[in-house]
């Protein structure tokens, strides 16, 4: 946990010098693996609870939910999320019965002059075996509608995803109004953001040793800079394909617009229609000869080096937690400490 106080210090330095900012993590921070060993549960939970407290103090705006956050079970994360100062996001971790999200699906934040929408997406394999009452839906079933809705209310969309890099690329290709996709690749090193369509896919080096900073010069065009003509041709080709698929579905009869008759077909049709609308909008913008200026960014990765100063409040929290963990280790008690941060009251699940 030693890097936490360095990170808090670095954040405070950046916030003082940068334009208005957002701080996010795509998830997987609470535990070291997707399952916990028996006797190590108590100390691991004490650290996890302290991490949540630290993220709250550091002013995180949103955190995604990944497999490592669910290692102590879904009820544990639900309890912890109620104690968090920031929202835990997942649009596809839902109740098995009615597919209602079990956590907040998205959040909107006003940053300077713009409104930013942040969505969370969880890896479908993230739920521990035997978890009752919950399921993780494929992104295709939840994301197009949510993105369509948020796009109409936001200037920029960020997706926090613990899906595989392949699936993240597919999302970027399908949904151009997801402008930034932050992924949690565990083996990832710091790499410059990769632009797929109109989406920047970011990787920040793992293990909390680095902090990534994107300084974004956003523009009303809502487009990252690139060769406009090549993009226009690519989107026209995509629109032709989508229109062909829609016509094929419509030729099947009236069932495609009736959710009751064939829910799966209805969802697929709606997703294609959303896609067509987004492509048409984008083509209209790109077709203008005097297209507005494109957005740009500068990426930077800051090593959280040992010689960076410590943030006093977080350093104190880390030190208290380490002492508590040592006590728990010495006691070697199999009893679990659900959501217990040293020095704070616990909330029953």
């Amino acid at each position, binding site marked *: 946990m030693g890097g936490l106080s360095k990170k808090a210090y670095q*954040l405070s330095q950046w916030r003082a010098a940068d*334009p208005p900012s957002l701080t996010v993590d795509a998830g997987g921070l609470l535990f*070291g693996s997707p399952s916990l060993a028996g006797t190590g549960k108590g100390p691991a939970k004490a650290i996890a609870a302290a991490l949540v407290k630290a993220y709250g103090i550091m002013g995180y705006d949103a955190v995604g939910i990944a497999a490592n956050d669910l290692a102590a079970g879904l009820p544990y994360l639900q309890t912890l999320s109620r104690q968090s100062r920031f929202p835990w996001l997942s649009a596809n971790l839902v109740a098995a019965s009615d597919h209602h999200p079990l956590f907040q699906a998205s959040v909107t934040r006003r940053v*300077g002059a713009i409104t930013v929408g942040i969505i969370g997406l969880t890896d479908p394999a993230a739920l521990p075996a035997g978890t009752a009452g919950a399921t993780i839906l494929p992104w295709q079933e939840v994301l197009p509608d949510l993105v369509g809705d948020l796009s109409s209310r936001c200037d920029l969309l960020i997706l926090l995803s613990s899906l595989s890099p392949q699936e993240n690329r597919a999302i970027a290709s399908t949904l151009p109004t997801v402008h930034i996709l932050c992924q949690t690749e565990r083996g990832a090193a710091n790499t410059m953001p990769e632009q797929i369509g109109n989406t920047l896919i970011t990787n920040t080096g793992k293990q909390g040793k680095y902090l990534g900073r994107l300084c974004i010069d956003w523009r009303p065009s809502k487009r990252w800079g690139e060769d406009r003509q090549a993009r226009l041709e690519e989107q026209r080709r995509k629109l032709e394909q989508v229109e062909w698929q829609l016509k094929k579905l419509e030729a099947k009869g009236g069932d495609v617009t009736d959710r009751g008759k064939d829910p799966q077909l209805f969802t697929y049709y709606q997703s294609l229609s959303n896609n067509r609308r987004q492509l048409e909008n984008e083509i209209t913008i790109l077709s203008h000869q005097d297209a507005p200026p494109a957005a740009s960014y500068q990426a930077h990765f800051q090593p959280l*080096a040992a010689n960076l100063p410590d943030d006093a409040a977080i350093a104190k929290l880390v030190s208290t937690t380490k002492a508590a963990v040592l006590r728990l280790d010495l006691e070697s008690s199999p009893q679990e400490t659900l959501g217990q941060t040293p020095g704070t009251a616990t909330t029953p699940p």
Partner: protein
Amino acid sequence: MKSALGSLFALPALFLLLMAPTAHAQWNSQAFALYLSNDQQGEMEPCG
């Protein structure tokens, strides 16, 4: 005479102060910073 000379030097200094770019001047009104972390419990030690 001394104070008149002082005023003469103060004017350009004041002009430069007013025209100096602020830390945020390079950004347009829609600019913002996004801070990203990728943490995992037990591995959060600083570099080096």
